């Protein structure tokens, strides 16, 4: 058996690999990101913060804060 598949995480031009099993909220905390400032999508779908990440999931984080509007 091969090693358990990891979860791939991307945010803009940054990428991480994490172990499956944690929730979306725990993932953000683990990366030092404020859960209020990011949305989590798993395999293209928006998920709530208690969603548990499964082996092989592809997670894209969406920063929600924008600024400098004139």
């Amino acid at each position: 058996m091969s090693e358990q598949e990891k979860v791939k995480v991307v945010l803009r031009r940054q990428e991480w690999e994490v172990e499956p099993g944690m929730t979306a909220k725990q993932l953000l905390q683990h990366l030092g990101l404020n859960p209020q400032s990011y949305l989590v999508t798993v395999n293209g779908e928006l998920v709530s913060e208690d969603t548990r990440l499964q082996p092989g999931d592809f997670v894209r984080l969406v920063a929600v804060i924008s600024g400098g509007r004139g």
Partner: protein
Amino acid sequence: MKCRKCREKAVINMRQHKLALCKPHYLEWFVEQTERFIKKYKMFTRDERVLVAVSGGKDSLALWDVLLKLGYQADGFYLRLGIDGGIRYSDESYEKIKTFVAEHPGTQLHVVDAKEMYGESIPEVAQRSRRGRGKPCSVCGLIKRHEMNRIAHDLGYPVLATGHNLDDEAAVLFSNTLHWQVGYLARQYPVLPEGNGFARKVKPFCRFYERETAAYALLAGIDYMYEECPYSEGANTIYYKELLNKLEAERPGAKLHFYLSFLRAKDKEGLFANWEEKKVELHACERCGQPTSAPGLCAFCRLWPEDVLNKPSEAFVPLTLIGGLKTEPSEENATTS
């Protein structure tokens, strides 16, 4: 986490409302809430034409989308800034907006191209003018405000809508409180009445958190400009928003309470009601007619050289795109020609 309405899997949890919703119920809730805010603050009616200032970002495109879904007469205004920053910021933003327009038959987009009309992009004017000083935001804001007012006036829109969300409003409120900017605090409100030839200004999203407008844009399938303007980096607004989100993470609802209790203090307790604007006599700008504090030309008109100011008025008519009409030849035409 389950949707409060149907018990299906929730896609978002709004802790400040103790409300979790699934995708279809969230989309429905978001649109209904917008209608509620429009009515509550008496922003506009279905008989009034609304001009939505769009940047290509999530808030403004989501706002335009929701207003059209609600059956309002909403058209768009876009100012092409000519900002590249290595990410083709303006070009990409414009592409997103054009895609949106193409998907919404009957809607209109009025486009002002700074470079084409005035001869210089925003970074170029900023470079040249005293107001710019390396950071184009001040010039950019001035030009956006002026052109928005001009187009609304010239094309007969009594209402100007912007996509400001609660995080924007709370950040401004925080900053204005930190510096006790009484004049700004006295004016901050979801609606600014018309007057002096200016359209009424409204912010229908002022009670949504920024993560909610982002969630709506994602769930509604709106392809928005995700990259930030390269000049926004390190902006104070972002700093204050992050600060408020730290507070929000520990005390759910703190942000909402901060903004709503400010509005309540104004509405119910007359906060700033007796604030008298220092009476600055307003003059009409000699060239454009927009009000200005000093006689002569307004700050906007003072930005430009003589030859630009003397162009015939037709040169300043915006380009209008009509939704649902193909702007490029279809593949069929291309192959048969």
